[in-house]
C-alpha cells in the first residue's frame, strides 16, 4: 500500500466534493447523539441533592463551554497550518470555524447565566468560568473583526492567523490568571456537583452531548467552508462546472 497523498485532499476542488458527501452523515450522527444525550440527561441522570432539577442545564452548558475552547484551538491550529504551509484550504477552515466557536461561546455564557440565576441568585457572577468564557468571546470577536477589516482574503488569512496563534498562546495564561484572581470560584466543571462524586450517568450525558456538539461543529464548519470556497473561487473553471451551479 502506498502512502496516501494527503495534499490531494488539501486542494479545494477535491475537498469540496468530499465534504459534500460527508455533511448529511455528520448531521445525522450529531442529531442521534444529541437525542441520546438529552435522553441520558433527562431520563436517566438522577436529581441533584442541592440544585434540584436546575443542574440539568449542565448538559448543554458544559458541552457548549468545551466546544468553545476546542474550536478556538482547532481554529488556531488550522490558521497556523495555513500560515506555515501556505495552504488556502487550512485558512478557509480557520475562517469557517470562527463563527461556530463564537456561537458556542455565546451559548455557554447564556446558559451559564440561566444556570447561575437559580443557583447563585444572580444572572451574572464574576466566577472564573463565566469570566474566561467572556474573554474567549472577545478573542473570537477580535479574530472575526480583524478578518473583516482586511479586503484581500489572502492577507486577511495571514493576519488573522498571527492573531489566532498569539491568542492560543494567551488562552492558558488567561485561564490561569482568571482562576488566580477568582479563588472563590466553584471548582472545575467536572467536580461541580455537590455530591461526593458525580453520578456516572451525569458524566455520560455530558460526554455524549459534547460529542454531539463536536460532530455538529465539524458538519457546520464543512458547510461553511464549502460556501467560502464557492465565494472565493467563483472564477475558477471547476467551480463553474459544478453540478449545483448549472441553471
Amino acid at each position, binding site marked *: 500500500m502506498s502512502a496516501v497523498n494527503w495534499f490531494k485532499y488539501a486542494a479545494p476542488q477535491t475537498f469540496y466534493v468530499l465534504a459534500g458527501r460527508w455533511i448529511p452523515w455528520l448531521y445525522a450522527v450529531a442529531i442521534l447523539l444529541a437525542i441520546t444525550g438529552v435522553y441520558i440527561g433527562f431520563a436517566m441522570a438522577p436529581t441533584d441533592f442541592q440544585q434540584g432539577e436546575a443542574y440539568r442545564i449542565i448538559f448543554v452548558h458544559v458541552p457548549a463551554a468545551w466546544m468553545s475552547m476546542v474550536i478556538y484551538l482547532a481554529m488556531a491550529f488550522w490558521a497556523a497550518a495555513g500560515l506555515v504551509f501556505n495552504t488556502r484550504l487550512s485558512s478557509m477552515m480557520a475562517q469557517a470555524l470562527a463563527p461556530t466557536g463564537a456561537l458556542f461561546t455565546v451559548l455557554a455564557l447564556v446558559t451559564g447565566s440561566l444556570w447561575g440565576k437559580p443557583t447563585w441568585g444572580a444572572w451574572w457572577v464574576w466566577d472564573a468560568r463565566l469570566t474566561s468564557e467572556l*474573554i474567549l468571546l*472577545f*478573542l473570537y470577536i477580535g479574530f472575526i473583526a*480583524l478578518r473583516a477589516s*482586511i479586503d484581500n482574503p489572502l492577507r486577511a488569512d495571514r*493576519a488573522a492567523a498571527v492573531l489566532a496563534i498569539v491568542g492560543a498562546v494567551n488562552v492558558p*495564561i*488567561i485561564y490561569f*490568571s482568571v482562576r*488566580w484572581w477568582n479563588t472563590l470560584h466553584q471548582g472545575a466543571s467536572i467536580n461541580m456537583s455537590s455530591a461526593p462524586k458525580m453520578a456516572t450517568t451525569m458524566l455520560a450525558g455530558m460526554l455524549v452531548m459534547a460529542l454531539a456538539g463536536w460532530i455538529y461543529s465539524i458538519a457546520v464548519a464543512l458547510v461553511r467552508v464549502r460556501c467560502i470556497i464557492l465565494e472565493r473561487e467563483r472564477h475558477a473553471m471547476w467551480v463553474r462546472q459544478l453540478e449545483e451551479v448549472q441553471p
Partner: protein
Amino acid sequence: MAAILIEIVRRDLLLAVRRSADVATVLIFFVVVASLFPLAGNPDPVVLRNLAPGVLWVSALLACLLSLPRIFAGDYADGSLEQMAIAPQPLSLLVLGKIFAHWLVSALPLVLLAPLLGLQYGLQGEPLLVLVAALLLGTPTLSLIGAIGAALTLGGRGGGALLPVLVLPLYIPVLIFGAGAVVASQAGLEVRAYFLLLGACFLLSLVVAPWATAVALRIALE
C-alpha cells in the same frame, strides 16, 4: 547586532522628541482618566483606596493603548518600514528596538507619574512602591503585546476601535497580576508571586511578540 538596536532606539527617541506634544497628550490622558473616577463615584478615602489598584492600572492600560498606533504608523506612511523589512538585519530585532523606544517614550513616563496619582487615591508606603514596581515590570509586556496589534491593524480599514478589541483581551493577565500585587500589598500579604508571574508574562511576550510583530508587518507590507 547591538549597534543597530541602539541606532533604532536613538532614531525613534529623536523622532519622539521632535513630536513631544504626542507624548504629553498620552500623559495628560492618563491623568484625566484617573481623575474621572473619584468624580463619577464616591471620593471617600476608604472607597478610593479600594478602587486605586484597578483604576490606576486600567488608566495606564488605556493610555498605553492610545499610543500604540504610533509605533509603526509613521514609518509605514513614509516607507521607512519597507526599508527595514529588506534590511540585512532580522526584522524582529529592529521591531524589538522600536518596541523598546515606544516603552521609553510612552510607558515609562506613565510609571513615573503613577505615584502622584497613587497619592491622590490615598496610597502610601509599601502599596505605592508596589504599584510603581508592578507598572515598571508590567508595562514592557503591554508594549510588546500591543506592538503585535499595531502591526496587524496597519493598513487595514478597521478604524480606531479595532486595535483595542484585539489587544485588550490579551492584556488581561498583566492587569490581573499587576493590580493584584497592589491589592495584596494593601492587605499586607506577600507580593513576590505576583512579581514572578508578571516577570514570566514579560519573558514570554519578549520571546513571542517581536517574532509575531515581524510576521504581521511583512503581511501588512505585501
